[in-house]
């Protein structure tokens, strides 16, 4: 392994987080290594002297630790079956299998590295300018480009272990558990608010954790206070990932047992953003060599993990963080050969390499210094993401050389800590405390009286890029040269530049690279950074697994109370909207013939069922149905069709008159929810003065249709309090009575199949019992249960259309063959004007019965009727009818073809044309309805 030597773990550090007594074994690219408990993958690799940890995306340049935090673009690994693991954040686990992504064949020898040699030709956006001709070769070029796709691998099989989500409703949510965040949490909690404190790292403390003894002591005392406070809930290794409208906030908890991450959805009264600062890289030649690290990466490695990141260090700094890093390095025994302080005129020209790793630096005074570690401290980026997502526009702070929150902050969102300014620990704590109090005030009584002390960035040198060119976006391999070229070409606004070069589009989403991108662009345009402006930060703050976002599926399936019976009696399920129901019990054709000759029962529980009560129900019915309802006697039922205001059919069903002011409405299964909302909408928004109450009783009743010539005989065995004779209980009537000892059952003499039939609605709890009793008593008649398929065949034989199958999104009333039903002489009803106009114009397709001339041919549903190359209609339903022993269809055709006897060409999916004849009736079976009325 390149650069691997013995352990470079130094002496005990004060803030060390590793447990030296617990060793963990893991492999990296197949080789075994040892680390300590508490190590991250990166600290362990560094401790083992591994310097080159990855290859870059485009040029396959060798890369080492750079920012040393979660966002480090160089530290993405495949860990077991998980791609893109953040190695500078993820802790080691025993037996972890870690490997480099995106190399071939190996990290050491990576063939893609030839791209480095070609880099002058592969400038950003080069692919837009080439591979243009010949067109047919682009797919081949594309395959080659795809080989450079970054990232790890996902397996083709494997299951999604549902990670349960939860909700939280704190008064104050604090994002970031550094000193300002802890201070804000404590003061908000002291003011009486319930606080949720979320910290991305494994421990509270923020930058204090890699600080001095004093800083460590402050962190410890704050941690203790937070832990002891009853009103603060703390989550570590968790991150506030997004802020959405009205403080709807996503929090990701990581490192859970079994599932990797889970989502907490937080509605918080106020949000305090205290994410601290992110150190920004500095752009110069060689800035991506392994061995060039940001000062905070060094501070972490040394002070948290007691790891020596090198032997001979040069520090280039524009602030105190570089000085602190130098001190830490000396403390662990690294030879700090030179500190180049930009504040005192020091400058960095380039880093040089030997065997792909850093070997020295060239300074602006012309000197060259040998080193294997270059520490860079060029300044800070304030991660304003959460504020941005709250509608805030960051502004450039010239003095502090960074973008800071703008003045237009939402009044339920607050910011503190490094995001806002620099200061001593006391100043930070004071600001945090004041902001915490403000957040609590806003959360509880609404008005903010606390005044936060002034707090702003300290002056900082504008160190973005040096005199030589280097990498700006490490994850995308975009150099400052790429940016300058693109800007000069005309991609000269931040938005165009970012899209053209892909700078800031990679996994770090601009946290490390945006400011340098903007700075380079500003220089190309000869503008200030402020004029150039910054890009919009988009959620999430850090990437979230699909698994956490998905959680557990809450899309329930509905079953009738008889489902268990169906399943244990050979019922084969079909998904029907929300419902699962039997399609058939083995042989649909046989089910049909049994029903036609004897009796069968079907579970129709999914039908929508509503009880309508009140003195104005008929008004409602007259409004929503196209037909008339005023004269419906008690005990009678009627078929109705509902259209929308555009005259398009949207549901049909039967409604019965139970008693004086009670009605029972049934709708299609899939239309139930829509019809309910539709009725309520008209009642509440159109006619609030009407006295109608609607109760959805869809699942209060189990519904069974008993169909077949022997259905009356069967039902009479179980009913004694209702006279079922044709005279006493004719077709299109309903009665309420007792079935098999179950009182309160509705019995309707209707059916979709065309046979004598009774649709019964039984209190749901007795559904299974009544079903079984029917089956038992029906045994003598050779009863069969039948499923959806048999019903579909029989309804087609009978010529009943199905809304949504034989009609579509533009089928108006007069297209469906229900001219007899539509009563244009009614005062008003929904869709009436459109139906009137359709009636007058005769426009629109017409639904007709069609018999293929070859009775054996069943044209696939949706087969087109094409004449002279123009579509003139289509088959909407087709089946082989076991009753007629021939194929039968319904179809929508242009009016000219809707004449009985017309022969139409039907184009089958394979292109064959067959002939069909338009029939006089939709029904192919008993079109007079003698059977129904029997």
């Amino acid at each position, binding site marked *: 392994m390149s650069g691997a030597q013995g352990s470079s773990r130094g002496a005990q550090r004060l803030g060390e987080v590793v447990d030296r007594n617990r060793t963990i074994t893991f492999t990296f690219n197949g080789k075994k290594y040892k680390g300590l408990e508490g190590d991250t993958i990166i600290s362990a690799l560094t401790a083992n002297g591994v310097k080159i940890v990855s290859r870059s995306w485009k040029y396959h340049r060798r890369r080492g630790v750079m920012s040393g935090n979660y966002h480090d673009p160089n530290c993405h690994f495949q860990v077991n079956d998980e791609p893109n693991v953040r190695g500078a954040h993820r802790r080691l686990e025993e037996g972890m299998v870690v490997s480099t992504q995106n190399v071939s064949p190996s990290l050491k020898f990576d063939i893609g590295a030839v791209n480095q040699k070609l880099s002058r030709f592969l400038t950003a956006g080069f692919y837009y300018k080439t591979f243009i001709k010949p067109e047919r070769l682009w797919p081949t070029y594309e395959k080659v480009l795809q080989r450079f796709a970054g990232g790890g691998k996902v397996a083709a099989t494997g299951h999604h272990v549902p990670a349960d989500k939860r909700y939280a409703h704190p008064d104050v949510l604090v994002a970031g558990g550094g000193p300002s965040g802890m201070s804000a949490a404590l003061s908000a909690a002291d003011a009486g608010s319930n606080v949720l404190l979320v910290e991305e790292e494994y421990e509270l403390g923020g930058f204090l954790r890699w600080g001095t003894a004093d800083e460590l002591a402050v962190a410890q005392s704050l941690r203790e206070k937070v832990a002891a406070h009853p009103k603060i809930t703390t989550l570590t290794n968790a991150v506030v990932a997004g802020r959405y409208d009205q403080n709807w906030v996503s929090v990701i908890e990581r490192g859970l047992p079994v599932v990797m991450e889970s989502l907490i959805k937080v509605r918080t009264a106020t949000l305090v953003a205290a994410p601290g600062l992110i150190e920004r890289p500095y752009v110069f030649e060689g800035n991506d060599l392994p061995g060039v690290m940001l000062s905070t990466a060094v501070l972490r490695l040394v002070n948290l993990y007691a790891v020596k990141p090198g032997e001979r260090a040069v520090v280039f700094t524009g602030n105190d963080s570089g000085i602190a890093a130098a001190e830490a390095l000396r403390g662990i025994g690294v030879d700090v050969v030179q500190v180049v302080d930009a504040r005192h005129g020091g400058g960095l020209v380039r880093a040089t390499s030997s065997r792909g790793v850093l070997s020295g630096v060239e300074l602006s005074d012309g000197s060259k210094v040998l080193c294997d570690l270059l520490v860079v401290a060029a300044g800070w980026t304030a991660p304003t993401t959460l504020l941005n997502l709250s509608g805030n526009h960051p502004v450039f702070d010239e003095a502090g050389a960074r973008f800071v929150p703008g003045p237009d902050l939402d009044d339920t969102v607050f910011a503190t800590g490094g995001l806002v300014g620099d200061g001593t620990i006391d100043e930070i704590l004071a600001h945090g405390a004041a902001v915490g109090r403000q957040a609590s005030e806003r959360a509880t009584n609404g008005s903010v009286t606390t005044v936060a002390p002034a707090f702003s960035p300290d002056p900082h040198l504008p160190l973005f890029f040096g005199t030589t060119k280097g990498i700006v976006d490490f994850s995308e391999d975009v150099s400052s040269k790429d940016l300058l070229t693109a800007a000069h070409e005309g991609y000269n606004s931040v938005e165009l530049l970012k899209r053209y070069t892909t700078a800031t589009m990679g996994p770090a989403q601009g946290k490390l690279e945006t400011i340098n991108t903007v700075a380079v662009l500003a220089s190309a345009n000869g503008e200030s950074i402020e004029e150039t402006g910054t890009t919009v930060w988009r959620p999430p703050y850090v990437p979230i697994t699909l698994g956490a976002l998905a959680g557990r599926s809450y899309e329930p399936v509905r079953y009738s109370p008889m489902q268990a019976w169906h399943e244990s009696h050979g019922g084969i399920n079909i998904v029907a909207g929300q419902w699962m129901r039997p399609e058939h019990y083995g042989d649909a054709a046989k089910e049909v013939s049994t029903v036609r000759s004897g009796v069968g029962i079907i579970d129709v529980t999914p039908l929508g069922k509503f009880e309508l009560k009140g003195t104005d129900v008929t008004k409602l019915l007259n409004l929503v149905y196209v037909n008339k309802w005023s004269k419906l006697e008690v005990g009678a039922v009627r078929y109705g069709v509902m259209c929308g*205001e555009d005259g398009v059919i949207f549901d049909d069903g039967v409604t019965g008159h139970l008693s004086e002011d009670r009605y029972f409405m049934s709708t299609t299964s899939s239309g139930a929810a829509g019809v309910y909302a539709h009725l309520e909408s008209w009642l509440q928004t159109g006619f609030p*003065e009407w006295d109608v109450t609607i109760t959805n009783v869809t699942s209060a009743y189990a519904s069974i249709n008993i169909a077949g010539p022997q259905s009356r005989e069967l039902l009479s065995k179980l009913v004694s309090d209702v006279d079922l004779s044709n005279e006493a209980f004719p077709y299109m009537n309903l009665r309420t009575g007792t079935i098999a000892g179950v009182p309160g059952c509705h019995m309707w003499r209707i059916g979709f199949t065309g046979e004598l039939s009774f649709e019964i609605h039984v209190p749901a709890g007795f559904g299974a019992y009544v079903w079984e009793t029917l089956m038992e008593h029906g045994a003598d008649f050779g009863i069969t249960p039948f499923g959806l398929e048999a019903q579909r065949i029989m309804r087609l034989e009978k010529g009943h259309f199905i809304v949504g199958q034989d009609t579509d999104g533009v089928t108006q009333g007069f297209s469906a063959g229900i001219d007899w039903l539509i009563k244009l002489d009614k005062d008003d009803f929904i869709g009436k004007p459109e139906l009137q106009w359709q009636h007058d114009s005769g426009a629109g397709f017409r639904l007709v019965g069609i018999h293929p001339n070859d009775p054996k041919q069943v044209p696939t549903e949706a087969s087109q009727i094409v004449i002279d190359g123009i579509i003139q209609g289509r088959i909407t339903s087709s089946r082989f009818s076991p009753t007629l022993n021939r194929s039968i269809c319904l179809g929508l055709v242009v009016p000219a073809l809707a004449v009985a006897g017309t022969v139409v060409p039907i184009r089958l999916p394979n292109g064959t044309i067959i002939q069909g004849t338009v029939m006089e009736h939709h029904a192919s079976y008993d079109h007079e309805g003698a059977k129904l009325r029997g």
Partner: protein
Amino acid sequence: MILIPCPNCGPRNSSEFTYEGENKERPNAATVTKAQWRNYLYLKNNPLGWTTETWYHSSGCKKFLVAERHTMTNEIRSTKALGQQGGAS
């Protein structure tokens, strides 16, 4: 997730509601012209700014309500119940 203050239920996530859109007066069906009717069917103001619209608390009290919402910020500055009490509860 915007928060909609239901006059019956208090503030609830918008995922509990069905959006019905801009309020629109239904023309008199007896006298309406095609142009007027299709204007009613298809034309909306679609403003950038405050709009008055109907929402249906479909996974809640099942009441329709009228809200004033800003189409840029999604801020809701008022909601009121529609019509009378009564109906399903």
